């Protein structure tokens, strides 16, 4: 029986990582599902759903040659796939400011206190080495309105962090 696994990969960024892994998986008959792959700092990171009749250690063996030659750290977990049941985000939270400790902890603690479910979080450290700025976008599902979420986050503005929440409306046509 085929089962789904989550493959996690981290390594120094260089051309050819995705091609080498995808080729090894394809040759072994492993099916690919949803993925998030992005360069964070100087590292390339992969979260990739893979489907196969083999077990987790067999997947690691399939990827081992490519992983060794490219210096990748890899991890495989059995998962419940839940494909074809995307949850639509209805609120976007944007945060930016001078980088300082605790921004993420404070924003997400406030969101979690209202049952806000984070579906997608992206953040970047921008600016210069001397004056870094932190930029974060969170798309999530909230039972409360964007206005209520923004009000919840307003106290953070007094600490010099720009925060905002806006409704995400998905057009269906």
């Amino acid at each position: 029986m085929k089962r789904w696994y989550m493959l996690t990969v981290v390594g120094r960024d260089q051309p050819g990582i995705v091609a080498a892994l995808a080729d090894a998986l394809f040759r072994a008959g492993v099916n690919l599902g949803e993925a998030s792959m992005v360069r964070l700092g100087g590292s390339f990171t992969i979260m990739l759903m893979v489907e196969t009749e083999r077990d987790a250690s067999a997947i690691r063996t399939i990827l081992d040659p490519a992983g060794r030659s490219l210096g990748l750290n890899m991890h495989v977990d059995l998962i419940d796939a839940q494909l074809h049941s995307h949850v639509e985000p209805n609120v976007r939270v944007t945060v930016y400011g001078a980088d300082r400790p605790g921004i993420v902890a404070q924003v997400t603690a406030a969101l979690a206190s209202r049952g806000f479910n984070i579906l997608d979080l992206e953040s970047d450290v921008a600016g210069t080495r001397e004056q870094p700025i932190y930029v974060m976008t969170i798309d999530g599902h909230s039972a409360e309105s964007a206005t209520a979420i923004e009000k919840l986050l307003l106290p953070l503005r007094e600490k010099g962090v720009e925060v905002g929440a806006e409704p995400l409306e998905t057009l269906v046509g």
Partner: protein
Amino acid sequence: MAVREVLHYPDIRLKQVSVPVSSFDQALREFLCDLEDTMRASPGCVGLAAPQVNYFQRIVIVDVSGKPGIAHNGRMLLVNPEVVSREGEAVGREGCLSVPDYTGNVARAERICVRAQDGNGEWREYRCEGYEARAVLHEIDHLDGLLFLDRLVSKRELFRRKAYRT
């Protein structure tokens, strides 16, 4: 009065270009009723284009009047629609009855002027903005064999565009 079956991508018929409507007859009026019935049968659906129901003529319906607090023209039945002018650009989330379980960010004009015939062949002009403009442009794309999948922009792109504008 009938709800028609909606084609789902990867059905390649969705990529074909529709032809202009030439006869404004009873068959057309019946089709317009079916198109509206099919749109109304899907909760939250604000527009539908003829090719989505396997009818390859240049016809779309848009009705965003159910969304609170936005400008709209009510129910718009657009036959042989042409976008006369476009202004501005905004990124928003779109999904499609013909592309189940996927949504993405698409950049569209913020304000448009559209010229189209009604069910009797009379030409009319509509000014649309925001959400309604997005819906009209999404539907007209179907007439040219284009899906929102052809116009996706990334979320990072979205933040950059937004940061530039303010």
